[in-house]
């Protein structure tokens, strides 16, 4: 009997552990995914809520109304077509076609799901019809509109501007765009992909902008390679294939290779690093990570860590092959370098105001994480500044003492017929009074230095002028 009792105790302990694990898992999943479940497009309660509750107003950082509910309960958007379209993917639409839009993703605030018991009771007593919270976003309607205007005519792509001091998203523009008041038009041409927010949902090969990550890995893991030099012949054989450059760069130091965006040098470096070290740095910088940001959905970037072949590693190190990233992620990497190697969660919500006029607490961001050593980040900044002063990114340079650090990229994508290149520019202003990080992507735009860099310069200049 005694031994039986002892065994029972053991089993009960196991059962208790299972239950404890279950409660822990439950808390974890509710904490990290609960908000996403509510704001999911498949949630019938949002459509139901819209019938009963007056949806709150969405404004930009200056208070410009982007979306509101009129007297008859219809959802209305900004009266200016350009503004409407510039922020369309961020704000979303009434029918939830843009699944990541604020109108859907933050429906829990806009529809008052977050109202406390007391607020509900007071509403019931005073007889006011239920009304959701008003949401103020961090984006600037003016900057978004400017970006939409300046974006190369007829091209697709995305631009993200972050304030790397406050982590606020100042602009998040994706092209092509649609008019939320004319959804039939948008839905008739779904092929164009206007309903997709390319800034957060578009996965592109980052091309040479990924060299920031490779450089970070080299500086972190192999500091001896500072004085490394490599003779670029425009061709570097690895495995059965070769990594190529458009032209031979000749003898390259690490710094020169970064400045000139020399593929062969970085391919050679990747072989020194090995897939483990490079993979580790990439993952520290957010690749393969599930971004569970509280304010917005950002798709996972991917970096291959399966050690397929030396050639695969070589192409990965220059952001080609199977490496994929969103423009938002690249902007986050730029702001991480700007912050001395500390990675923050970007914010989209500036404030939430309840019907009673009170401020609702914003969802808490994840703790900032140090992903690179301060010295490494400083060295990368140095190199990124050189890219803009005397490298591939000279056309992103600003005047009036503003120093831009950046990296261009021309990511080759091949479909059946042609080899086109996505033009990238990732960078930031180093000055403290204009802490803007930017990520520009022009699909099939051509070379990053000649297409993306000038656009980045204009956008950064505009941001300074507006004084966000």
């Amino acid at each position, binding site marked *: 009997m005694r*031994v039986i009792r002892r065994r*029972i105790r053991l089993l*009960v302990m196991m*059962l208790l552990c299972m*239950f404890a694990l279950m409660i822990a898992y*439950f808390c974890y999943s509710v904490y990290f995914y*609960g908000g996403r*479940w*509510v704001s999911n497009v*498949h949630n019938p309660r949002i459509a139901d809520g819209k019938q009963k509750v007056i949806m709150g107003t969405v404004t930009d950082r200056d208070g410009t109304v982007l979306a509101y509910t009129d007297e008859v309960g219809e959802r209305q958007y900004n009266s200016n077509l350009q503004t409407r379209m510039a922020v369309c993917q961020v704000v979303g639409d009434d029918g939830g076609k843009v699944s990541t839009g604020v109108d859907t993703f933050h429906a829990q605030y806009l529809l008052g799901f977050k109202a406390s018991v007391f607020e509900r009771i007071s509403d019931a007593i005073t007889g006011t019809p239920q009304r959701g919270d008003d949401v103020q976003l961090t984006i600037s309607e003016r900057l978004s509109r400017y970006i939409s205007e300046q974006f190369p005519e007829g091209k697709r792509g995305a631009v993200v501007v972050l304030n790397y001091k406050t982590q606020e998203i100042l602009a998040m523009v994706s092209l092509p765009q649609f008019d939320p008041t004319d959804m039939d038009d948008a839905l008739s041409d779904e092929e164009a992909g206007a309903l997709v927010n390319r800034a957060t949902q578009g996965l592109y090969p980052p091309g040479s902008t990924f060299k920031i990550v490779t450089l970070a890995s080299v500086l972190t893991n192999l500091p001896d390679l500072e004085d490394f030099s490599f003779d670029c012949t425009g061709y570097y054989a690895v495995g059965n294939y070769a990594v190529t450059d458009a032209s031979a760069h000749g003898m390259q130091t690490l710094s020169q290779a970064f400045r000139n965006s020399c593929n062969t040098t970085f391919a050679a470096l990747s072989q020194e690093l090995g897939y483990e070290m490079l993979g580790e740095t990439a993952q520290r910088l957010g690749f393969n990570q599930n971004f569970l940001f509280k304010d917005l959905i950002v798709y996972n970037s991917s970096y291959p860590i399966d050690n397929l072949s030396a050639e695969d590693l070589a192409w990965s190190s220059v952001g080609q092959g199977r490496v994929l990233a969103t423009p938002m992620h690249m902007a986050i990497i730029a702001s991480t370098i700007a912050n001395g190697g500390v990675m923050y969660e970007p914010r989209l919500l500036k404030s939430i105001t309840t019907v009673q006029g009170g401020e609702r607490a914003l969802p808490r961001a994840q703790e900032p994480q140090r992903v690179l050593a301060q010295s490494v980040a400083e060295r990368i900044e140095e190199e990124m500044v050189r890219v803009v002063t005397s490298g591939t990114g000279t056309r992103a340079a600003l005047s009036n003492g503003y120093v831009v650090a950046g990296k261009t990229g021309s990511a080759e994508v091949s479909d059946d017929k042609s080899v086109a290149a996505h033009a990238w520019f990732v960078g930031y202003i180093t000055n403290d009074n204009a802490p803007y990080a930017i990520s520009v992507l022009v699909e099939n735009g051509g070379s990053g230095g000649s297409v993306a860099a000038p656009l980045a310069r204009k956008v950064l200049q505009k941001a300074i002028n507006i004084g966000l």
Partner: protein
Amino acid sequence: MTGKRQVYTARAKQSGEETKPRKKREPQDSPARRTRGATRRAPEEKTEETALKRAQERRAAPAARRQKREREKAGTMARERKRVLVRSGGFGVMLIALLTAVFDALGLLLCAVRTEGVLDAQALTMIAVMAPLALLTTALLPRVAPVDPLLMALTNFLCGVSVVILYTVSPDRGVRQMVFYVAGLFVMLVMALVVSRLHRWHGLTLLAMVLGIGALILPLAFGEWNYGAKNWVSLPLIGSFQPSELVKLSLLLALAYYFGAHRTVLQMMPALLFAAACLGLLMLQRDLGTALIYYLTTLALFYVACGNMPLTALGLGGGVAAAVLGYQMFAHVKVRVAMWQNPWSDALDKGYQIIQALLAIGSGGLFGVGLGQGTPEKIPAYYNDFIFAVVCEQLGIVFGICLIAVYVLLVLRGIEVSMRSRRSFDLLLGCGVMMLLGVQTFMIVAGVIKMIPLTGVTMPFMSYGGSSLISCMAMMGMMHGISGRTREEMEEEILTARA
């Protein structure tokens, strides 16, 4: 005399806190207690024999001495009874009962006045049934029948939440659930009396086994496929029911009987064979969730009874192999696993149910949208398998976690009750019941929150359905019976010791 005796029994049925001081006192009271302690360590059958012998000796004692002893007994009993009256059920237990009654009453009252201008008489009637039942079964029942007050209070709470929640979403089901609950209480009482009184289990166990196999064949012969399983059967007079729920009782009886009295694996064979037969039939019914419960219960009791690690590991390995085989063989198992890994891949069809459950839980938030609010009926099978999601949507995640805690408390109390029993049969039966209920609760709740693949078993006491609720109540009856018998034996010991 019997009346007094029952009151005394009820007193002895108090929680462990009261047995402790008594234990301390006893050795001083009588040296006989110490010798009894020694015999207690001997094998179980012997204890029974000695108990019998002692009873005979007592009867043979001289009449005068017996009278004196009876007088003394009466005196102690009077004193004990006084204490019972002061601390009936214990404060905590009564608090739970009171909370349950208030919850039932308020929840149903809310339903009654839900539609403006119309008073729902049905809901008011239900208040009149549910609230007094919650109080009376906890406060009075333990005095007249072998019932453990804490277990009773927790059961009432779970059933009350179930009835109220079901009534808010689907009044018909709420009413029927209440009827099942009341019927379940009777079944529980009968089971408690049988388990506490019956001493020879051989015939009954055999009967239960035969009936069990027969019942499991029924759906295969007459049932119809639904939700990928063939586990329901409809019979004249009884109506449609799920035999696999009721056969759980047979399984527990068989396991406890053969594992309790016998020590070698060969002697345990009848129970193992019965369990294997059940598992086979359940596999044929494609009721894999229930099969898993049967399997885990059998394995747990096998380990507890014989402690044979290699054989237990072998059983575990066999189970894993069967699971892998099942995964390969049954398409719907593959779908379940795929939908567990990523339900969003087919959000509108195969993953719909689990996604709707998660959305409901998320929409409820920490404190819920409120009783009767929200749209839980969007979840397919919200009233049985997914009742946990409904509770979370309406009453909140915090309440959901409290509910899980109540189940844990129930299991702990059940284990405590069975740990105090003097016979290995009782011990194994109680442990089996609690393991079964615990595992089943874990499987369904973890399935609903997408921690493990969904297994499609019911949530004990909560899910809508007569078979499930009555089978759970019968299991609780077993627990009460065990607690009753243990009390009686303890009391006898004390009396003999005092004498």
